[in-house]
């Protein structure tokens, strides 16, 4: 832009600026208003707006009283750090709508999408400035957990400073294209040509699968860049890739059919972490061996060591306790307990369970008294796990986490 003085003056206040605007037409421009009229009108409205903002906030929403045993007159604000429309968004909106009916006092429900930086921005904001009275709730998911595990410098939050209200897990299976010459787990090793795995991004949910392959010493090469798991599934059906994984909620639509047709073979499930922190079979796939069992089949001994520890940690974070509602650590005990107990009631209600079975992918809402401790243990990521994972990314996938 060239430097012309008049452009910097506020339009309208420069008498010379707008006068020559009159176009050569039969109808002249309306006359200008006097400065006094403008100032009065704008001033009056500005006052009205300011008054509404300042007073309205406290009049319409009186200071919160979340510690008195009910949330009446309050609004539960769910911070969804991702854009609307995704799996986590659907999950949060569904849970929120149902949960508010169970919280005493029936608070309102306000989902707020604050997308940015793949979930990091919104979660950072929550960690910095969320209200600590229990009315502001963070929706946590794998996209915000993985960068935290990797220790990315952009992450300014820690799940150790938050308290889980309720968690909900998911599971998944790894399957292969039959035509690639795979009939079972044993075809993962000693291959002439490695199997091609289709991924989205090595620093996302795919990381758990990559660690599983590394643990199993599977003969696998990877191609990243797919738009989502759906397109990966299609690419497998087209024969472009050989290996894929799908979470439980997508299993029915994406995998079950092609397995029935004999085009694909289910190799293993990720399994679930039990209360003792061991890998057990996924209740949704009771007949499918877990990654740990697959290791035994391939190598004849139980898995152990650094890689297995890393796998178990990631399994807990990205599957068993994947989605959750969190409040700041400073939330008063009464308010926290009220939310947790309401969630527990919701999770155990049979009517809800029936309605929710598909959204929750067949995994219960967990909010019992011991939940917080189990989640705390699962969210403790040791230094050796962290360095192994970042090392794997650097050495095998040439990705350097900053």
């Amino acid at each position: 832009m060239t430097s012309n003085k008049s452009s910097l003056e506020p339009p309208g206040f420069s008498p010379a600026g707008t006068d020559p605007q009159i176009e050569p037409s039969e109808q002249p421009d309306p006359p200008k208003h006097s400065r006094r009229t403008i100032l009065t009108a704008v001033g009056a409205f500005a006052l009205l707006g300011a008054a509404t903002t300042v007073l309205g906030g406290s009049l319409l929403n009186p200071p919160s009283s979340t510690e008195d045993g009910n949330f009446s007159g309050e609004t539960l604000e769910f911070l969804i750090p991702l854009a609307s429309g995704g799996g986590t968004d659907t999950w949060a909106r569904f849970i929120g709508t149902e949960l508010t009916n169970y919280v005493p006092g029936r608070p309102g429900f306000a989902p707020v999408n604050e997308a940015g930086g793949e979930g990091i921005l919104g979660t950072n904001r929550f960690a910095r400035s969320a209200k600590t009275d229990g009315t502001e709730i963070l929706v946590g998911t794998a996209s915000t957990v993985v960068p935290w595990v990797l220790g990315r410098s952009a992450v300014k939050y820690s799940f150790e400073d938050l308290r889980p209200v309720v968690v909900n897990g998911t599971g998944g299976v790894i399957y292969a294209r039959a035509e690639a010459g795979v009939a079972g787990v044993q075809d993962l090793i000693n291959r002439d040509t490695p199997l091609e795995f289709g991924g989205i991004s090595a620093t996302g949910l795919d990381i758990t699968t990559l660690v599983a392959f590394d643990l199993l010493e599977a003969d696998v090469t990877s191609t990243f860049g797919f738009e989502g798991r759906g397109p990966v599934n299609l690419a497998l059906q087209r024969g472009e890739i050989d290996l894929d994984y799908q979470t439980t909620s997508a299993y029915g639509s994406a995998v079950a059919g092609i397995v029935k047709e004999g085009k694909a073979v289910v190799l293993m499930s990720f399994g679930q972490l039990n209360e003792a922190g061991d890998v057990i079979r996924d209740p949704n796939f009771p007949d499918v061996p877990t990654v740990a069992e697959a290791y035994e089949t391939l190598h004849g001994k139980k898995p152990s060591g650094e890689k297995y520890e890393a796998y178990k940690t990631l399994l807990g974070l990205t599957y068993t306790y994947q989605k959750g509602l969190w409040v700041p650590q400073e939330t008063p005990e009464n308010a926290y307990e009220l939310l947790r107990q309401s969630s527990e009631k919701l999770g155990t209600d049979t009517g809800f369970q029936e309605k929710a079975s598909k959204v929750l992918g067949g995994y219960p809402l967990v909010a019992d008294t011991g939940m917080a401790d189990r989640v705390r243990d699962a969210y403790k990521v040791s230094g050796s796990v962290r360095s192994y994972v970042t090392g794997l990314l650097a050495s095998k996938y040439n990705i350097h986490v900053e």
Partner: protein
Amino acid sequence: MLDSAMAALASLADPSLLIMLLIGTVAGLIMGLIPGLGGTGAVAILLPITFGMEPPQALALLIGALAVVHTSDTVSAVLLGAPGSASASVTMLDGYSMAKKGQAARALTLAFLSSMAGGIIGAVGLTLAIPLARPLVLSFASPELFMLTVLGVSLAAVLSRGNIIKGVSAGLLGLILGMVGTSPTTAEERFTFGSLFLGDGLSLVAVALGIFGLAEIASRASQRRGQKQIITLGGGWGQGIREWLTHWTHVIRGALIGIWAGVLPGVGATAGTWMAYGQAVATAKDKRQFGKGDPRGIVGPESANNSVEAGDLIPTLLFGIPGGVPSAMLLGMLLTYGIQPGPSIITEHLDLMYLIVWSFAIASVLGALLCFLSVKQLAKLTKVPFAILAAGLVAVMLLGSFQEGGQLGDLWIMIILGVFGWLLKSTGFPRAPFLIGFVLAIPLERYYFLTDSLYEGFDWMARPGVLVFLAILILPMIWAFIKFIRTRRKTNLDDGHRDEQPEDDEAPLKNSTWSLTASGIFFVAFAAALISSASFSPEARLVPQLVSTGGLIFSGFLLFIEIRRRLRDRTPKAGETLAEEADGIRGTQPAKAGWTLDAKFALKTFLWMTGFLALTAAFGYLIAVTIFIPAFLLIVARARLKVAIIYTGVLYVALLALPSLLPIDLPQGWLNTLV
């Protein structure tokens, strides 16, 4: 099959279903009218209501809304030049030009009829596609998808209206802008300058509304009087329908392209609609009227953007792979009812499938009919002085684009791109290629790398699908070249000259300091992109480097032409030294078109918008509106005091009521965090 289809139709006679369909349709129409909300907003509003309903009712409600959003989003695009959604910016090109000539009613009639036809064809396509979808989707592997994106990008040349160099430069810059954010293959951040906010890339809604909507507002905010006369359709609706019928091939072509774009995951509504426009232009014999009110430019894309939604339902229902945010929400709803999308949905829930088809078709007709009946009323909107509309439009568009991610940063980007869009528009750069480039940047790169890494060497080039695309790409080029040689031999009139003349009223600042500046900005932007991409990993920098090198060549050529023209213009006048002339880039000597009234007014309007956003950041949206609206109305639009007071009052009440009625968040300011 016919049995269940008829049974589904019969079930729609159930009054509760019909009411739901009607509510959905009306809600969809209203959400489409508000720039920035579109399908996502419509489904987001209705979704919570459906919790607790029976599946058929819920489906009727959501499908009703989804089917008509792209019918009504045309209204603001045609009447105000502010597209209701990113894909409506296509219809804007010709529809808005028509409206400016006083033929708003004609443009709307054509658009609504096409939307209706697109919806119906889409519904038919949905029915037919049920058995065909799987082979169709599976036959499109990465190489074909890559070629499809290449074809889309090459439309930039077709849509550049005679000035190919400017068009291609704009398309390449769009590509670069689309690459801002996380790279699809290596997950590293590009062109983000360490900002997490930029890590997700720029929001499509903000880019489209900025580059088209805000730019339009700025260039027209000086109009304090409305259009005096409205040319109504002589002969009434009959003639409108008759005119529309003459373009029936375009309707069908547009609809088919739309379905196709919807079926393929990763193409999207915006790109699909542009492709429909591109093919209409590419196959037309006389291209001169495109962008200036050619009915074919309305009919094809309007038909396409409705059928895209139907096409989008195919992968959503049959594979569980949603193509857009609205269908992702629909998928979520189906899951809450225990309806598992997937190939088995045909056998298990065939009745629901047909219910969707019928709902879609009926809603399309209903929505178009409702719009059609209100054409005359809507067209009166052009009588209102634009400056008065502008105030509310700025407020609504910024609010609309805030809803997607809830980031104030999106709004700043929108204003910056608004200024840039205005510069492009005024200096004769076509903006369509820019948006196409932006939309296709990531798919292009993604499918290039997938193709490259999943296939050995150039094997993929021999795939039949790829060969077809190559033929589509190369044959017209050869044809154009032959034609060019022939016409050269015959006369001296070439395409360039023929097109340049009538375009000048659209681009008043062509051949001035402004166009020199614009070329300079392009050149600098490409140079900066080239330099900063040097620090990326080899995989992540390949495409940005190719694009920015190409951009440097094209924009360098533009810059050369501009400078040469300045030199030629000036030499006879005064004896300036060569050194001074080279400095002309910086505009040391104001050129004759350097600082026109229009330019001054446009930049002032942008200053107003900036002020509005600054107020929002400081005091929150409510206060910003109560200051900005009356001030703008009284000072810029010079509206009557009464008008200004009622206008602001209504907006104020609406802003108070909206957040509790609709899932709309008002941007919070620094003051709100204190209170």
